[in-house]
């Protein structure tokens, strides 16, 4: 029998879970495996897995002006992509118009500038909103962008019920990792509840939130913590929705999740299998969900992120391929694959195409999608799934013991934990304890950055964004616009009147994101970041 030698250093997964030399069946804890599509959902949320429906290939894309982004979208749709994903520039994400002093250097820089409905109309020109699902990576200003999307559909004569897609709309992780917070925690939670309750009624096929672990993962935490923090955030939204009078079976089926996939193939696949079990159990046991769809832990993923390296960038194609495989083995509903050059630049058309092709090769050539949960019953994967489930529950308990996730965020507890984890990860890479090929092993000492084809932003872009922005404001009925804005402000001062209809009215009148945000800030104030202190 294989045994670890006495003096052999123990091997652990990146989350610190002990990896045996060989896993034997008697080491399993006897957790029920069940059937795919049934509790405890270890083997997936759908009985037919990808036989029923392949995952959605969804690439994050968008840069510069709405016109340029529209062109890129149409290119990607022609390439066989099945959903659009909108990257927004930082001013839009943080609630500043392009003429704001805070926005000066950044309008249109890392995504499209979407300050008002006129820009959204250009962004989706000649794209049928009823036929495509659109995902917006927006959080602090999510309710405004969601309102704008609904207004765009209204204007195009598309019924709201036909809209499909997702807004990220997950503010809690912004406070600890991604940084596009605007308002303090309490009014932010209100806006999220407003948009989810509105979506349940008016846009029933649209996912009004995607609870994301991807960013805390990139900020340094382990796969176990990624799932643990994200589930805790998800439960905080559930509690808020219940407080607002929501019914668990009306909103739970629209909650979806979003994660990073990193390089440890089996740990990454196992984390999703464990997460499905935990979520289903809590929704059923703690919240009494009866609708089977309320128990389904559906998630999208990003393959790439901080596991990509600027050194020897073509190696990233292999990394993304392995991560893509882990996502499929873990049962992801939608997958975004990073382009190999994404660690240092906006992807070129060529690198973006390779990223899509990676998914298509796995989908159509590798055969892994042909049977449901092909890893099910593997001694190692079941062992890892059991161990990760236990460790994830421990992370969730730690936050509960601290006094809940809101307190942990307001006092900077989670932020400090992430910073320490990030430093540990950096030190392990520096010391070579954690191998990164091309970076701390097998590196070219004389390497010059292999940049290849570089996509350059159009320098006139910023000027054109500002001109169009000004033109829209000049053209609109300003009295009508200001009247809708005032009504928004009045509603914002009530305890919990749903603000979505007011935001949609504003968008119809070409009120800008910056104006809506400024109005709400005048009543609610801004989030104050806690100091980084242990």
């Amino acid at each position, binding site marked *: 029998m294989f045994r670890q030698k006495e003096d052999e250093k123990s091997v652990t997964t990146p989350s610190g879970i002990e990896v045996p030399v060989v896993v034997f069946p008697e080491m399993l804890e006897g957790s029920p495996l069940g059937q795919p599509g049934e509790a405890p959902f270890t083997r997936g949320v759908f009985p037919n897995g990808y036989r029923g429906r392949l995952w959605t290939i969804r690439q994050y894309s968008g840069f510069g002006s709405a016109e340029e982004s529209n062109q890129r979208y149409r290119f990607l749709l022609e390439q066989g992509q099945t959903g659009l994903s909108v990257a927004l520039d*930082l*001013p839009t*994400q*943080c609630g*500043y118009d392009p003429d704001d*002093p*805070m*926005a000066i*250097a*950044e309008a249109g*820089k*890392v995504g499209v500038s979407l300050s008002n409905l006129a820009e959204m109309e250009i962004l989706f020109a000649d794209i049928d909103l009823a036929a495509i699902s659109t995902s917006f990576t927006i959080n602090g200003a999510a309710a405004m962008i969601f309102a704008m999307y609904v207004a765009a559909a209204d204007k195009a004569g598309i019924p709201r019920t036909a809209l499909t897609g997702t807004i990220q709309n997950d503010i809690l992780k*912004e406070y600890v*990792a*991604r*940084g*596009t917070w605007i308002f303090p925690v309490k009014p932010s939670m209100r806006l999220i509840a407003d948009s989810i309750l509105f979506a349940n009624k008016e846009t029933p096929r649209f996912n009004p939130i995607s609870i994301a672990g991807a960013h805390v993962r*990139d*900020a*340094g935490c382990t796969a176990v913590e990624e799932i643990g923090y994200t589930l805790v955030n998800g439960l905080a939204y559930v509690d808020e929705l219940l407080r607002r009078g929501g019914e668990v079976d009306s909103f739970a089926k629209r909650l979806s999740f979003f994660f990073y996939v990193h390089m440890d193939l089996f740990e990454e696949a196992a984390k999703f299998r464990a997460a499905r079990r935990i979520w289903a159990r809590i929704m059923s046991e703690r919240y009494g969900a009866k609708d089977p769809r309320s128990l389904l832990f559906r998630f999208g993923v990003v393959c790439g992120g901080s596991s990509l*390296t*600027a*050194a020897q960038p073509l190696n990233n194609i292999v990394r993304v391929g392995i991560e893509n495989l882990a996502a499929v083995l873990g049962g992801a509903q939608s997958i975004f694959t990073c382009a190999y050059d994404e660690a*240092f630049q906006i992807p070129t058309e060529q690198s973006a195409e390779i990223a899509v092709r990676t998914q298509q090769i796995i989908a159509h050539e590798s055969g892994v999608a042909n049977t449901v949960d092909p890893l099910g019953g593997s001694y190692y994967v079941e062992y890892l799934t059991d161990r990760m489930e236990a460790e994830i529950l421990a992370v969730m308990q730690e936050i509960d013991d601290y006094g809940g996730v809101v307190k942990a965020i307001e006092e900077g507890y989670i*932020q400090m934990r*992430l*910073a*320490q984890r*990030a*430093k540990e990860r*950096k*030190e392990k890479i*520096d010391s070579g304890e954690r191998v990164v090929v091309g*970076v701390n092993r097998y590196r070219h000492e004389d390497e*010059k*950055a292999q940049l290849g084809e570089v996509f350059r932003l159009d320098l006139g872009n910023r000027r054109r964004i500002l001109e169009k922005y000004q033109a829209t404001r000049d053209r609109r009925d300003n009295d009508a616009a200001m009247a809708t804005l005032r009504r928004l402000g009045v509603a914002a001062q009530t305890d919990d009147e749903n603000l979505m209809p007011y935001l949609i009215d504003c968008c119809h009148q070409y009120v800008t994101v910056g104006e809506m945000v400024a109005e709400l800030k005048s009543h609610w104030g801004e989030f104050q*970041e806690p*100091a*980084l202190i242990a």
Partner: protein
Amino acid sequence: MSLQGKRILIAKPGLDGHDVGAKIITLALRDHGADVIYTGLRKSPDYIARTAVDEDVDAIGLSVLSGSHQEMLVATLEQLKAMDADDIKVFIGGTIPPDDHAALIAAGVTDIFTSEMNLQDTIARLAEALA
């Protein structure tokens, strides 16, 4: 290498929320004895310069990952000059393409640190510049 007695402001100008590097360097500098203040996200060059003066720091570390490094450096240096505080050394870290280094140096940056650099090397170079 010790940074005992040195006061350093780590600052995030602009809107980009990628603060992992800023936080890592904050903790690492503290490990080496420095007094480190981290501004948090979205600070204007004016705010950063005023804080640096108020806190009487020896150095500012600007962390920029949005591509706006040149604009943010120049604006911060101008503010420091206007406050008669251009003895404060300014470092920059983040995703800074090699082609852009010369312009940053010409503008007056003391040193440039990118994310793939070894943490110990970064601190050693910083300590040397502040010695």
